């Protein structure tokens, strides 16, 4: 499975995953089991989820799910186009949680609504935000990847600028979070 060599890499994502690769891989090739190995999971926010779901070797199976090629190609085309659609869907990952979520940024009017929603979704608390010190009072910090591929602290830019440049969200934990908040972006 190759997780031992990958686990030590500095990556922003679940161990053993690379989202862009997933989308481009040929249908018949096998991909790694996405479940994180026990030693990389500190505190699974979702209780016992890895035991509940039947472990199936998640090979990228030919012709599954059963969607016509035309429709499949259309979806892939949409993903590579810029999102000017009705919703702005971005993926949200949280360090330690085995599953990502997807949210529609259009549903929120500002940062406080967004952060509240994230707290509910992942069952945690975000600290107090200050421009100088970032998020204090909790071991979590919400970050996002912008159009240029840089990881920024959520809240640093005006809301409208944020939703038009945010590609994905990651709730960082522990020292990495502290490092980001104190480096004064």
């Amino acid at each position: 499975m190759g997780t031992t060599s990958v686990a030590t890499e500095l990556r922003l994502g679940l161990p053993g995953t690379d989202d862009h690769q997933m989308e481009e891989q040929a249908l018949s090739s096998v991909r790694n089991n996405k479940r994180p190995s026990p030693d990389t999971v500190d505190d699974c926010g979702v209780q016992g989820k890895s035991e509940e779901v039947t472990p199936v070797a998640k090979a990228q199976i030919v012709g599954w799910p059963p969607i016509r090629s035309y429709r499949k190609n259309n979806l892939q085309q949409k993903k590579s186009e810029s999102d000017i659609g009705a919703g702005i869907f971005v993926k949200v990952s949280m360090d330690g949680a085995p599953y990502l979520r997807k949210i529609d940024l259009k549903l929120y009017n500002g940062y406080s609504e967004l952060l509240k929603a994230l707290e509910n979704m992942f069952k945690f608390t975000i600290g107090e935000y200050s421009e100088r010190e970032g998020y204090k009072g909790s071991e979590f910090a919400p970050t996002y990847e912008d159009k240029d591929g840089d990881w920024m602290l959520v809240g640093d830019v005006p809301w409208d600028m944020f939703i038009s440049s945010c590609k994905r969200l990651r709730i960082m934990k522990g020292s990495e979070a502290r490092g980001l908040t104190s480096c004064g972006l």
Partner: protein
Amino acid sequence: MQSMESTRSTRSLSFPDKVLHRVFTHLTSNEDRNSVSLVCKTWYNADRLSRSKVSIRNCYSVSPEILVRRFPNVRCVTLKGKPRFSDFNLVPPDWGADVHAWLVAFADKYPLLEELSLKRMVVSDESLEFLAFSFPDFKRLSLLSCDGFTTDGLEAIASYCKNLTEFDIQENGVEDTSGSWLSYFLESFTSLEVLNFANLSSEVDFDALERLVSRCKSLKVLKVNRSVSLEQLQKLLVLAPQLVELGTGSFSQEFSAHQFVDLESCFSSCKNIQSLSGLCDATARYLPAIYPACANLTFLNLSYSAMGSDELDELLMHCPCLQRLWVLDTVGDKGLEAVGSNCPLLEELRVFPSDPFDDDTIQGVTEAGFLAVSFGCPRLHYVLYFCQQMTNAAVATIVQNCPDFTHFRLCIMNPRQPDYLTNEPMDEAFGAVVKTCTKLQRLSVSGLLTDLAFEYIGKHAKNLEVLSIAFAGSSDRGMQCVMEGCPKIRKLEIRDCLFGDAALLSGLDKYESMRSLWMSSCNLTMDGCRLLAKKMPRLNVEVIQEDESDDSEADKVYVYRTVAGPRKDSPPSVFTL
């Protein structure tokens, strides 16, 4: 009494043929036609001479020669070719189903051919040209899920079919070389009623399209592709307010209030719209422009539009007559709640996955959405539902709310996934479906399933005609239950199940009354298939052997009844045993 009866029967025998033909023309269903042809020789002849429409649902079940010999006066033909799983890349591209030999036979015997509908056939540009030249009366062409042609072939149709009324190109593997084919329709050509090129990708010659729409006053169906902008769409709507079915192109652009008002007024004049599709990239800003045209809408296809729950809710409030709805799972459970609240007349729902290959994101719809629809839409009888999680209890409630299901296609996208709350197999879910929905004709199962699910199906699904199974069953007994229990089964498609030769052979008595059987990645051996072929000589038992895997295993098997014998056009990877 008796003498009267015998007089009556002699009278019917001397019924003039013309009258019989006349009576038979009122029989439109092929089933009825097939039944009357079995009554006696006179009726058989009357049927064969008066039949103008034939539907061949497996192009290898009969040969062109046999067809034209039996039915000399056909004007409309439907031909279906490849097994359905070819849509999902399970069938090699050179497998067969080339339409050309049929066209050659038709050119000879059916010079007055008017209509051709092809599904999953291979159609080359040469064939399209041949078609355009051979049939001066040709009116209606429909290509669905076909491949092998380019837009060059479409040019030939546009140029030479002077009486064309329907041109419907849907979801095909078309090589789109240019959009200029539209300009090949002559300026004198005005008969078009149906034009669907929604799935072609290249930019079309808009001027040519505009002129075409302007002079075809009987145009009822227009479905354009994404290259047609909102501004261009407006121009078309002004020219064709009589449209009954509309497929838009791209539905977004730089917003301007003025533009919105114009667009809205365009839609207001379209009083006859019953079906709406496209709406690609529809933004919340422009979507309300279509509301005035939705009063009589019965079919709404949003499956190419990543809509959110709020947009959907508002839109549905303007569609009181909606009967059929196709959406992407971006609408979420919340969007489906809106469906339940706003669409009491809903009969059909299809929810497609927007991100089917990403299974570490919790997204899309769940059992909650399906439940919400079932509570609000008691007339629901057709569903296609892709989801990441489901429970037995939810399905049981759903079918209680909607007992009239005729088509129940549930796809839990993670193979072999159990009920996510109880961790049990999904057997009881499908058990509930077949016990409650006595009218069930088509069923697709998914999730973790043992033989019990198939016991239920065999015992209760007495009207089942089409069954699709993937990653299921615990032994041969599963398939056996189906073969022995479902009297009306016509099409059975199975992939990645552990059914073996014993299961295959349990259906010996059934296969001749079925259209076809597909089994791939199961436990079949060449010996088992050979035995089947030997015992049932009127079946074609085809094995597709693509790579150099074990010669004794039969990885892909396709069995179908035929009066044409083994086919002569098999590629090297296909063996008819």
